């Protein structure tokens, strides 16, 4: 049932690795820019949790944001490019099952997300180390939570990217998906702030955003403090991941937009 999926996974990893300057180095640089600007401006003015400086709060948020955005970018761009270039036919002609497609695309997206996330974290550590003002450790207090949320979040966005890639017929449709759904959801998830600092209405809205739970749970692994319980976050992320996976598998099984 799963024959050949490892080769597709390998191909998908190699695909982004061959252009790692754009797919890994560039997003790390973007995150470092956010870190320098927001960290510099807000470090002295904002403190979210007791004993946690703003920059320390910001770095895990940026790491997770990078994980999510790059996981999404990987599967979505691969799928939509293959569809538009027409080379998806090489996969359509094979006996690869919908499970194989699903695992190959989701896991390769996860690999890119985690790789970029690791790069951003490393950049964050260097940033703190070279600073004369900042004085804290980025060592996670509960690394298992960090890993769990990074993996689940990356898988979820990799799967969403796959769905978006199957759905979009043109690059501008993909850009719309990214700009109107993925970007607002990541920015409104508490990457740059604690949602407790928001007015009540926006707090309630944020609680409907699954991205909030990914970032909150991920941050809990670093500081042992979070806006909601990590177990609640785990539950929400688990349910969402199951739901998007079911949708992606259904679309692949029926050949939605890829088999006429």
């Amino acid at each position, binding site marked *: 049932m799963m024959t*050949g999926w490892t*080769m597709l996974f*390998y191909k998908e990893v*190699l695909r982004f690795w061959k252009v790692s300057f754009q797919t890994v180095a560039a997003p790390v640089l973007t995150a470092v820019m956010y870190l320098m600007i927001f960290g510099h401006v807000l470090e002295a003015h904002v403190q979210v949790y007791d004993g946690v400086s703003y920059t320390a709060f910001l770095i895990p948020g940026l790491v997770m944001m990078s994980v999510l955005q790059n996981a999404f970018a990987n599967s979505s761009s691969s799928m939509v490019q293959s569809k538009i270039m027409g080379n998806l036919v090489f996969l*359509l*002609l094979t006996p690869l099952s919908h499970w194989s497609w699903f695992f190959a695309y989701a896991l390769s997206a996860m690999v890119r997300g985690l790789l970029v996330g690791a790069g951003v974290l490393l950049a964050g550590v260097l940033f703190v180390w070279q600073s004369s003002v900042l004085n804290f450790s980025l060592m996670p207090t509960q690394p298992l939570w960090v890993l769990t949320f990074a993996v689940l979040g990356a898988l979820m966005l990799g799967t969403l990217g796959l769905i978006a890639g199957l759905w979009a017929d043109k690059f501008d449709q993909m850009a719309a998906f990214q700009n109107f759904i993925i970007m607002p959801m990541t920015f409104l998830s508490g990457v740059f702030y604690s949602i407790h600092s928001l007015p009540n209405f926006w707090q309630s809205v944020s609680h409907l955003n699954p991205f909030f739970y990914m970032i909150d749970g991920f941050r809990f692994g670093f500081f042992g403090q979070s806006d909601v319980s990590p177990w609640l976050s785990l539950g929400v992320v688990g349910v969402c991941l199951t739901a998007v996976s079911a949708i992606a598998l259904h679309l692949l099984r029926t050949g939605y937009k890829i088999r006429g």
Partner: protein
Amino acid sequence: MPAISFQSVSKTFQTARGPFQALDGVRFDVQKGEFFGLLGPNGAGKTTLISILAGLAKATSGSVLVHGVDVATQSAQARRMLGVVPQELVFDPFFNVREALKFQSGYFGVKHNDDWIDELLHSLGLADKAHHNMRQLSGGMKRRMLVAQALVHKPPVIVLDEPTAGVDVELRQTLWQFIAKLNREGSTVLLTTHYLEEAEALCGRIAMLKNGKVVALDSTTELLKAASSNVLRFKLDAELPPALAAMARVTGRIVQFPAHDALEIERYLAAVREAGLHAQDVEIRKADLEDVFLDVMHQHEEVAL
């Protein structure tokens, strides 16, 4: 058991202008080891039929079996037996030639396939391009790569959808020698082409498709026999009178009349002379598949009217 069995395959597309029937009850078998030609004008439904066979599209009704395996319900098993060369010149710009072939092997679960990959590269004249990126290949080389990718898992049934469109003569020869060799070694070949002389030279049997229906299905020899045995061909500088033109095939200055015997030939020439025209470069040749093809397509036009 036939290699491929099309069983009343129909396909209707929903378009903005309403439903369009691309295939209408197509039914024929391709036997194991055959070199089979599928001919028809543009829009006849050839590619749609191949797409359904390959699992790229679903039939609205009917079914297709490959070695007795249904392509819709047991798709994985059926696809393992098929090597399909798509019509569009597609490639993955991220990878080189050898990588693309390794991936394709892997998708079919074929491991340690380097020997066969080397043989494919060699037979298709791509050996020195193995480490070139797909983008660097010329159109003809990309076309040969499509063939290599289709054959990487050694399928018993090879399907070629217009593989020689836009390919130069030398390359066409290399390609056909290789495919003919595979056919001699037992592979079944289903070919669609616009080059009728190619089909005539290679295919043992031929099906002709028009408006989604099979309008002729016979061995190439029988199809040629059934057609007028000779063709009278000459050039004219002026226009043929309408009464004569209706019987002839006119391509620019070249006029061709189907003819069975000397009397008929004399009659045509006399009619041309009476019309005050001067036939040049007169020759009489054997009918070929192109004549059969045009005959068959023409007959069905009249029926349709």
